[in-house]
Every structure is written in structure tokens, then in C-alpha cells.
């Protein structure tokens, strides 16, 4: 385990170093801190977007899920995110980059200027993302315990302190560079492992044939109800265009074209990584380790049996990189919801740039330490809750954002109603206060769209000034 530990320590030290180096530039400027001065190039941004989305779940989880639930249902979950990228690229990237602010709250509060929107949106983000961060920290702790022999508590305390330091002091600049390196590491490890597996057998189809002959359930989906994976598909497809850590990345691009191209390239890289993991690594795992009790270990078991120590060490670093690259982006987005959206909105121009810098750093520490507190004794089902948290954001933000950008009749009443009704319906459906036999996110999106239509019908028409401002975002 020495090689693995050394590589992980080097990775963590590198992140802290980048954070401290970046802090000299970013602490005094809002633009630098939240959106890296809006000068991130296309390739770097694409890799950072891919890394932000590819959490521990995208490396360990996707393979574990395919191993236990079969390939088709697993791909349905991740294809939702892949479909979400074109939606983001075609429906929001140009407009939000042209808008030129920092967060999704900035846009929604501008489009629907009401206190409910200004404070409900960041509150939903804080709730959903804190759950997401706790789930990621738990994944980091379990991974470090299993792979490095480090106790769970010690692992997450160390990991959290590292995240907090480089996110709070280095802002978006530090996150972009660490995510780019971590994204490249993930891509190289998964593609390298997959290609090596295929090379040995001859072709991916032959590999799949051998695996499904031994374990036919790998290719089947009939044992699963459609609703079980349709809901996840819809959640991720509708989340990507509005999810705060992706929207913030759109704002870091140097222009609207670069923002859209970054999303397209990120989608390509993410898609290829998931397909290689599921179609090349999982079949080998099923052939060589047919009875794994913990399916999430399949990737590491394959790496252990097929590759030498150094490459195994790089694979462990890649898994932790996947966890870290998502958690840091979530932490920044969550602290932006508190420091920029809520406190910035309350203080307005009364706070000096220095005060705001202290608030920015403080918000990251508060969110990070709170998440750490929960992660030390996490609820049992936290890993399942995080997708529900993302579903809450999809259900509440998707309709008002897309309608606000594209539908001329979207107005204050419709936007506010669709936000509140989408969130409330999703929560009630998740708690099974009512159950229509359809995925909660589908019911909530329909309810949100209906509320938008009703608001547009009964409310006051939008002013020509607002419509002109929105039209300008499309140019």
C-alpha cells in the first residue's frame, strides 16, 4: 500500500499547493474567485467540466452498478447525464455566458425579480449540495479505508481539510486546475484499463459475448421496472442545464462559443469514459470475480489482478481524484449560494470587497465543516439521497430556467409558481405523500410546467424591457 499512499499524498499536497498559489490572485476579486476571471480556455474547461460531473460514482459506482444491476439499466442512468449536455449546450450555455454573472440564482432572480426566487433558489442549492457533499465524503472515506488502510474518520477529516483549504483560498482558479489534472488522470486510467482488457481478448464484442455467456443477467433489464431507471435518466438529463456547479463552469469560459464547445467536448469525454468502463472493464470483472459481495470493488479487483503495483497506485489516486474533483466544485457552488446569492443579496453594495472576501472564505469553511460533521456519522441511505437532492434541483429549476430563456410569455407569476410548485411536488412525491406510480421527478416537472402555464395565463405580461434583455442574451 506504500505506493498507493505516496501517490495519494502527492495528489493532496498538489491540490493544496495549487490552492495557495491561486489565492494570491483570486482573494481580492469576485470575478477571479467565482469564475476564474472568465478566461478559461476550451480544453481546460472541458476537462474540468467532465471531472466535476464524474464523481466517485462515475468510476467505482458505474462499474459496481453494472456488475450488480446489469449493463442496460446502468447505462440508462448515465445516458441521462449525457443527454443533459446537449440540452445545456443548445438551451442555456450561450445565453448564460452572455448574461455575464456568476450563478443560476443571478439569472433567475433577474428574470423573476422576487424575494422568493432570490432566497429559495440558493436555499435549495445549499440543501441539495450539502447532501451531495456528505455522500461524496462518505465515498472518499470508504475508498480510503478499503484501498489505503486509513481509518474512515481520519481519511475524511484529512480529505475535507484539503478540500476546504484549496477551495476557500483558491476559488474557481484552483478548482479548475486541480479538476483538469484529476479529469485527465481519470480518463487515462479508465481508458487505459479498458483498452488493455479489449486488447487481450481481441474485440469488445467478443469480451461481451464471453461475459454474457457466463453471466446472462449482465445484459438483461427485464427484472427491473422501467420507473426505476427512467427517473434517474430524467433527473440527470434535466439537471445538467441548471445544476449550479456546471452553470458556474459555463460562466468561466472566455466567451459563449468556448462555453458551448467545452460542454460538447466534456460530454464526449464523459460518454467515452463511462462506455469503456461498463463495456470493457465490467465484463472482465464478471468473468474473473463472479461472486463479489461488494460489487463496488469490481474495478479495483480487476486492477489488482491485471496490473502491476504502480498502475494500481495510479488507479487508487484516480478514484480519489474523481471524488475530489466533484466535491470541490460542489463546495464552491454551495458557498457561492451562501456568500454571493444570500449574503451578497442582503448586503448589496454596503459590504466592501474585503468584507466579501472574508465572507467567501468563511462560507466555504462553514459548509465544509458542517458536511464533515455529518459525514463522520452519515445517515445509512445518504448515497441514495444525493440523487434525490439533484432531483429536487431539476424539479424546481429546470422549467423556470428554460422557459425564462426561451418563452416570451414566461413572467414573474409563472416563474415563481413553477419554482415553488416544482420543489413542493417533488418533496411530497419523494416522501410518498402521494404516489402516482411514476418517478417523482416526472410528476414534479409536469406540475412545474403547469404552474408556469397558469402563471403566464393569469399573471401580468412580461415588460418589453425584460424581453429585450433576454433577446440580447440570444445574440
Amino acid at each position, binding site marked *: 500500500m506504500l505506493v498507493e499512499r505516496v501517490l495519494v499524498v502527492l495528489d493532496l499536497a498538489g491540490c493544496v499547493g495549487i490552492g495557495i498559489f491561486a489565492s494570491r490572485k483570486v482573494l481580492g476579486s469576485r470575478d477571479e474567485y467565482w469564475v476564474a476571471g472568465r478566461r478559461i480556455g476550451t480544453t481546460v474547461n472541458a476537462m474540468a467540466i467532465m471531472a466535476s460531473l464524474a464523481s466517485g460514482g462515475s468510476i467505482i459506482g458505474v462499474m459496481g452498478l453494472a456488475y450488480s444491476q*446489469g*449493463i*442496460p439499466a446502468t*447505462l*440508462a442512468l*448515465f*445516458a441521462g447525464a*449525457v*443527454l443533459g*449536455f*446537449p*440540452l445545456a*449546450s*443548445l*438551451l442555456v450555455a450561450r445565453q448564460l455566458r452572455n448574461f455575464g454573472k456568476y450563478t443560476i440564482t443571478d439569472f433567475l432572480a433577474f428574470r423573476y425579480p422576487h424575494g422568493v426566487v432570490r432566497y429559495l433558489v440558493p436555499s435549495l442549492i445549499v440543501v441539495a449540495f450539502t447532501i451531495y457533499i456528505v455522500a461524496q465524503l462518505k465515498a472518499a472515506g470508504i475508498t480510503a479505508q478499503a484501498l489505503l488502510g486509513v481509518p474512515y474518520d481520519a481519511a475524511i477529516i484529512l480529505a475535507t481539510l484539503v478540500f476546504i483549504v484549496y477551495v476557500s483560498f483558491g476559488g474557481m482558479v484552483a478548482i479548475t486546475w486541480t479538476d483538469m489534472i484529476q479529469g485527465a488522470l481519470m480518463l487515462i486510467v479508465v481508458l487505459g484499463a479498458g483498452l488493455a482488457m479489449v486488447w487481450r481478448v481481441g474485440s469488445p*464484442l467478443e469480451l*461481451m*459475448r464471453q*461475459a*454474457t*455467456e457466463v453471466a*446472462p443477467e*449482465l*445484459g*438483461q*433489464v*427485464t427484472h427491473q421496472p*422501467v420507473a426505476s431507471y*427512467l427517473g434517474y*435518466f430524467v433527473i440527470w*438529463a434535466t439537471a445538467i442545464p441548471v445544476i449550479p456547479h456546471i452553470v458556474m463552469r459555463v460562466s468561466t469560459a472566455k466567451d459563449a*462559443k468556448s462555453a*458551448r*464547445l467545452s460542454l*460538447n*467536448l466534456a*460530454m*464526449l469525454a464523459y*460518454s467515452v469514459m*463511462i*462506455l469503456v468502463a461498463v*463495456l470493457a472493464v465490467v465484463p472482465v470483472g464478471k468473468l474473473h470475480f463472479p461472486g463479489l459481495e461488494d460489487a463496488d470493488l469490481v474495478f479495483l479487483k480487476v486492477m489488482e489482478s491485471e496490473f502491476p503495483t504502480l498502475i494500481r497506485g495510479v488507479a487508487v489516486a484516480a478514484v480519489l481524484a474523481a471524488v475530489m474533483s466533484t466535491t470541490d466544485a460542489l463546495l464552491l457552488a454551495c458557498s457561492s449560494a451562501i456568500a454571493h446569492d444570500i449574503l451578497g443579496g442582503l448586503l448589496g453594495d454596503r459590504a466592501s470587497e474585503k468584507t466579501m472576501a472574508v465572507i467567501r472564505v468563511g462560507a466555504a469553511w462553514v459548509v465544509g465543516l458542517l458536511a464533515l460533521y455529518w459525514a463522520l456519522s452519515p445517515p445509512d441511505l445518504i448515497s441514495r439521497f444525493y440523487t434525490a437532492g439533484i432531483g429536487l434541483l431539476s424539479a424546481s429549476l429546470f422549467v423556470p430556467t428554460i422557459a425564462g*430563456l*426561451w*418563452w*416570451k*410569455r414566461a413572467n414573474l407569476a409563472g416563474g415563481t409558481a413553477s419554482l415553488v410548485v416544482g420543489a413542493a411536488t417533488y418533496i411530497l412525491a419523494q416522501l410518498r405523500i402521494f404516489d402516482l406510480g411514476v418517478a417523482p421527478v416526472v410528476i414534479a416537472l409536469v406540475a412545474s410546467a403547469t404552474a408556469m402555464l397558469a402563471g403566464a395565463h393569469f399573471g401580468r405580461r412580461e415588460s418589453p424591457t425584460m424581453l429585450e434583455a*433576454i*433577446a440580447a442574451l*440570444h445574440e
Partner: protein
Amino acid sequence: MKEFFAMRRAEAAALLFLVAFSAFSFLPVWRDIEIGGIAVFGWLMVALMLISPVLTLLVFLRGERRE
């Protein structure tokens, strides 16, 4: 359609195609038929994951050339 802000025709077509392809993929019939040991639904998801990025990239590059 005057109620909506204009979208480029190629972009709208790509968007509609991807949404229609997704809906088509989720038809229950594809769960029962298998090709090469994998349910057709699985292959359709593979296709969606490849077609989505490539199609969107092509539409973007075409739009850039026109500009």
C-alpha cells in the same frame, strides 16, 4: 411560434431528434429482445451516448462555419 425566441433550425432539429430518440429507446419492447447477449435497450443507450456528443458537436461546428 412567435411566443418563443428563435433557435437555429439545425439546433432545433438536433434537439428534437435526441429527445425523440430517447423516448423511442424507452419503449418497453426493447427490454425483451437481445443482440449479442445485451438487451436492445442497452444498445440503444450506447447509441444515445455516442450520437448525443457527436451530433451536438457537428451542429456546433456547422453553425460556427456559417458565422
